[in-house]
């Protein structure tokens, strides 16, 4: 019961965010993306403190992992 209510709330929140109702198929695709986003951003944030001290990256190097070997 609790799980179902949580899922319904999650779906409702997602539909509110997108501004439209979703079919089951659309919901499955969006829910999968949203859950991945939440996990990924949370995981990334763990590194932000490190970055402030050590990482002076510029856009020129961001997109080219092997820029230094070119």
């Amino acid at each position, binding site marked *: 019961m609790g799980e179902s209510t949580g899922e319904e709330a999650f779906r409702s929140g997602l539909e509110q*965010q997108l501004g439209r109702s979703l079919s089951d198929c659309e919901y499955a695709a969006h829910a*999968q993306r949203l859950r991945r986003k939440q996990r990924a951003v949370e*995981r990334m944030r763990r*590194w932000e403190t490190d*970055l402030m001290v050590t*990482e002076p*990256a510029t856009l020129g190097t*961001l997109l080219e992992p092997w820029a230094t*070997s*070119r």
Partner: protein
Amino acid sequence: MKVTPFQSISELGAELRSGLSPTEVTEACLARINHLDPALNAFIAVTPELARSQARTAADELAIGRDRGPLHGVPVALKDLLATKGIATTFASRAYADWVPDFDATVVERLQAAGAVIVGKTNLSEGAADSSSVSSAFGPPRNPWDPAYITGGSSGGSAAAVAAGMAYAAIGSDTAMSIRQPSALCGLVGLKPTYGRVSKFGAMALSFSLDHLGPMTRCVADAALVLAAIAGPDDRDPTSAAAPVPDLGRLRPPSEMRIGLSREWLCDELDADIALVFEAALDTLSNAGARITESSLPHLEDLYHLGSIITAVEGAAYHNARYDEVPERFGVGLGALVESGRTYSGVDYVQAQRVRRHLVERVMQQLSQFDVWIAPTTSKLACRIDDDEPSLVIPRMRNTLPFNVIGVPAVSVPGGFDQRGLPVGIQFIGQPFAERELLGMARFFESLMPKLDYPDRMAS
């Protein structure tokens, strides 16, 4: 002379220089496509007129002693995200189905300059954005080993075309898994080269900083031949690397055959049959003299999550204007990618790229301890097409996406079969721009395995 559909490119090349005509080989491939593709759906478009014209040219040139090299007269297929002059390039999407480029992608130009014959454009996931190819607007390609099962994705049609003997090689693209995972599920060799090794000019994008183009073939030597033809710098792609392309003609494993094995993350959630095949592969290599050392590749889980952020945002940026114009023409999965990507903040994206740089430096310190690392290509076996669902993308790409984020080369090689008789792949990961050593190790492993007996559905 009789055409043998599953022979290697070098075996075919020897016959093409001993009297077999490129036109005979091309007609044989077109006949196989005609017969097999209604069931396999590997191709979005077949290009018989172009193929016949190129085959005639190849034959005429060989007749006067003009030999363009190993791919001369060899039928190949192109993932339908590569621009082809005068031929619709669809991205397997109704949103792009009407686009007819007036230019060829660099890899297409290079294949044609090498004498290859283009037999068609292959099916894929819509926008290269799912892991099974089931989302294609043209219907799913089917696995030649059992058509009830997925090919994997996103280069699923390329995999089916080569595994069914409808082409001798295909070009795929790989943002998270998309050359290696379908190659694993269809029993092929699939190489994701180093980021920048192969120009992406003219390739429709999923994620600019994670996309790679590479070959899908039935043996390692063929992958090397195709890579040699398409690799090298290109002024039209600012991310293409200036690094010289090594001689890929003679593949040998690194002399000490030291292989790193990191079980954390890469072996955490394997399907049971994949674990069995992987352990057997480790035993086979060890018994043949390879020195496999358990070590640790740190931060792969972090890299995996960074890859998810970067793909979503760069994918949304690529499709942004088109999605505003014709949202109804986007399938559910690709539409969700765009809408999800739009919800990340600019800070999220820049931080993801900064953390990426930071962690890649750390991982490389460990990765450089061994010439080659080994892992299962994917943690999930092929499922039936009817059982595919969006959440399966996560286990399917966990073993491959981190190496797109790092940018190092990686190749999937057939390693055995599951209990249903479907192929399982073994992944080797190499050093930046060291495709020669990587393919040398892959070739060594291939030489220890029984030769694959591809299912010839022409006979059934």
